[in-house]
C-alpha cells in the first residue's frame, strides 16, 4: 500500500493518505475538505478545477496527488489573507462578476497568477490568461472588468 504524500496546501504542510494516482482535485475536496475547487469535466477542458502549483495555474482534475508531492498548492480558500478578501475577490463582488458562479473560483486562481506576473495586464492579456476557462453564463466582460479593477486597486495600494 502507498504511504501517501506530503504537500503544502495554502501555506500549511499536510500529509494525505490517498493513493498516488488519485487526482489532486479529489484529495483537495474530499480529504482536505477544500471544496471551492470544483469538478467540471475531468479532462482539462473547462478550468473549474484550477489551482496554483508552485505559483503556476494547473488543472487539479488531471494532476495526480503524487505529482504535487513536495510542492506548494494554492486553492481559492488560500487567496484571502488574514480574513481579508484578495483584491480580486473584492473586485469580482464590486463588479458583480458572476451569475451562477460555478466558474469563478478557477478563474480567480488564473487571474491571481496573471496579476502576480503582470501588474497591469491589457484586455488581450487578460483574455489570453483566462481563455482556458469556460463560463456558460456569459460573464466574460464583467470578469475582464473585475480583473482590471483589481489590478488598478493593487497598483493604488502599492503606490
Amino acid at each position: 500500500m502507498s504511504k501517501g504524500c506530503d504537500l503544502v496546501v495554502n501555506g500549511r504542510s499536510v500529509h494525505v493518505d490517498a493513493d498516488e494516482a488519485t487526482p489532486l482535485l479529489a484529495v483537495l475536496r474530499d480529504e482536505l475538505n477544500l471544496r471551492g475547487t470544483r469538478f467540471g469535466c475531468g479532462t482539462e477542458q473547462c478550468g473549474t478545477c484550477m489551482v496554483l502549483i508552485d505559483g503556476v495555474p494547473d488543472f487539479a482534475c488531471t494532476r495526480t496527488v503524487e505529482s504535487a508531492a513536495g510542492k506548494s498548492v494554492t486553492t481559492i480558500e488560500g487567496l484571502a489573507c488574514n480574513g481579508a478578501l484578495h483584491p480580486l475577490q473584492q473586485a469580482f463582488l464590486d463588479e458583480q462578476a458572476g451569475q451562477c458562479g460555478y466558474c469563478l473560483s478557477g478563474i480567480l486562481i488564473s487571474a491571481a497568477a496573471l496579476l502576480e506576473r503582470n501588474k497591469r495586464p491589457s484586455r488581450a492579456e487578460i483574455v489570453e490568461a483566462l481563455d482556458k476557462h469556460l463560463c456558460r453564463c456569459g460573464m466574460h466582460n464583467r470578469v475582464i472588468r473585475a480583473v482590471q479593477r483589481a489590478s488598478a486597486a493593487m497598483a493604488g495600494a502599492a503606490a
Partner: protein
Amino acid sequence: MISNSLPQSLIDNPLLSQWIAFDEPGRVRVGSGRVEIGQGIVTALAQIAAEELDVTFGQVNLVSGQTDFSPNEGFTSGSYSIAIGGASIRLVCAEVRSLFLERAAEKLGCKANELSIEDGRFFRAGKDTGMDYWAIAGDVALDRRASGTAPTKLPSSYRVVGKNIPRVDLPAKVAGAAFIHDIVAENVLHARVLRQPWRGARLVALDESAVRKAAKAPIEILREGNFVAFMADAEINVMRAAEAARSVARWEGGEPLPDNAGTPDWLKAQVARDRTVETGLKGRTEGKVFSARYSRPFLTYGSIGTACALAQFQDGALKVWSHTQGPAVVREWLARALSLKASQVSVFHRQGAGAYGHNTADDAAFDASFIALRHPGRTVRVQWSREDEFSGAPLSTAMAIELRAVLDHDNKPADWTIEIWSPPHAQRPGYNGNSNFAGAEALPNAPPLNEVGDVPDERGGGATRNAYAIYDLPRHRLIHHMLPKVPLRTSSLRGLGAWANVFAIESFMDELAERAGEDPVTYRLSLLSDPRPRRVVETVAQMSGWFESKTLGEGRAHGFGFARYKNIAAFAAVVVEIEVDEEICLKRVWCAADAGLVITPDGARNQIEGGIIMGASFAMKEQIRFKDGRIAAAGWDDYPILRFSEVPEIDIRLIDAPNEAALGLGETSVGPTCAAIGNAVARALGKRIRDMPLTRERIMTTLLAE
C-alpha cells in the same frame, strides 16, 4: 400598468401564511417556490418584499425552494419568476402590511392611515410607537386567503426596488464552498449510475470484474433492469468504476439514432401531429411569393458543473437535496416513481451551476433517492460525469422552419405563413404524465411512456414560441408539425423554440427588405405601428450608428435582429458587428431592451448580456451530433461554446419604463442576437446561411457554392 389581479402562484397557494411568517425576532421569512439558478432571483424577490413591507433588505429572509416551507410554484422557467412569482410576493406583502397596520391602529386607538412603517417599526406622526411587526405578530392571523386588493406601493415611491443591491449568493461563490456539490454530509455513500446510450437500450453484457478492478477499491454494484449503479465510500472509486463500465457495457435494442438526426430532411420524415392557426383577414393570396427555409440543430444546455444530488432515507422519510428548478414538482414525481406518499418526501433546493433549462438535476435526484431507499440511514451522494452530462441530458430540439410571404405592390407581406417541424420542447417531470427521470426509464417494469405534447400556445408555446412575428401582418398562418415520437428527451433550453423562430423571422425580414431594395431597419419600422417596439428598434439603431455606417469594408458588416420574447415579455433589439473570413469574428454588440419596471437594473443587464453571449454561442458554434446510435459528444472539445477570446464588447441600454409591469427578461436577448449574427453574415458574404450553427464549415461550403 402594474395590474393587481391574482397571479397564478397566488391562486395555487392562496393563504398568506404559505408565503410569509414573522417567527424570528427582527426577521421576516418570505417563501418562494422560485429558485436561484444564477439569475439573482433570490435577491430580486427579497427586494420586492422589503419594498412592500417597509422593512430593510437585510430583514428579509427569503426561503426558496424548500418543499416543507415554500409555496409550490412549479418550475423556475420561462422568465416567469419576476413577472408572476414577484407579483405574488408584492401582493402578499402589501396585504400583510395593511393587516398589521389595522391591528396596530386598533391597539393604539388611532386610524391606520395615521401610521407609517420604517424598518419594520410603526410610527405615528413621525414618532416611534414602540410597536413593530414582531410585537403584534401573534395578534394577526395570516391563515387567511390573499385578496390581492391591498394597495401596493407606487413605483415613484420605491426605495429598494430598482436599486442595485449586491447579489446575496455571490460572496460565498468567490471564496470557496457554495454549491450542492460542496455539502459535507455524515455517513456518505458515493454513487454513480451507468446511463443507457439511447432510449430503451437493453444492457446485454457488463464485465463486472473489469469494473471492480478499475475501481481500485471494493465497490458495490446495484443492478435492476437496465439501471446500474456503483457505490463506495470514496467518490474517486465510483468515478473510476463508472468510467470503466461505460467502455465495457454492451447494449442492444431500443431506438438508436441515425447520424442525420436533427437535419431538416430527418425532421420532415418523422410522424407528425399537425395543426393550422389562421388569423387576420382573408386578403391577397396571389402575387409575388417569396419563401425560405431555416433550421437549427439539437443542442445541449451545457452547464459548467455536472448534476449532483444527495438523498437520505430514514424512518420512512426521504430527504432529497437537489438543484432542481421545480422542487415541489420533483417531490411529487419522486414519490410516484418510488411508490412513496408525497408526504414522505422533502426536497431541499441547493444551488448548482447555472441551469438554462431542463438539465440533469432532476435525474440525479432520482438516482440518489432510488439508491437511498436501498441503503437506509446512509446519505447517498450522486454526481454525474461530464460524459454523462453530454450523452444523458435532455436535449433542446432541432427545428426546421419555413417562411412564405405573398407580397403586395409595395413589397410588404400581404399573406404570411410560418411552417414549423419540431419535436416538443418540454419533458420535465410530469409533463406527459411520466416522471421523465432518466433512471426511472431504465428500471424493470418502467411505466410505458405516454405520447408527449408541446407547451400550449397559451403558456407561451414550445416550438411555436415567438412563431408569431411582431410586425403588422394583415394575414397570418401558422402550420405546426409537432413530432411526438422522436425517441429523445427533447426539453426546454433557454427560450425553447423562440430563438430559432426569431432567427428565421428576422432573417426573412432582411431578405424581404433586400428584395424591396430597402434598408432592413427602415423596412421593419414600416411594419411596426406600435410606438413601444419602435422605440426599442430606434434606440439600438442610434446606439450602433446603424444609419451612419452602411458599409464597413471588405468582409465586415452590421446585422440587426429584434423580438419581443414570447410576444408578451421584454423587447430586445440587437445590432452586431462582425468580420468574416473563414470564421466569424464577433466584434461588437449593441442591445436596447424594454423590460418595463426593472427590479435590479444591474441584474437585468447581467441577464441580457449573458443571453447575448449564449445566443452568439448557439448561432455560431453549438450542435449535437450522433454517431453509433448515440450522442457523439464526450467533452467540451466535441461541443465548443463561446470562449473568452471570442466574446465581443457589449453595450446595453435599458429603456426606462417604470410605470409598466415588470416583464421577464432572462431569455429576451438570445433570439435577436442569433438573428443579428445571421443577417450580418449574409451582408458580409453576400450569401445567406439559413442553417445554424454558422460554422466555418458552412461558410466555406457557402462560399464555394458560388
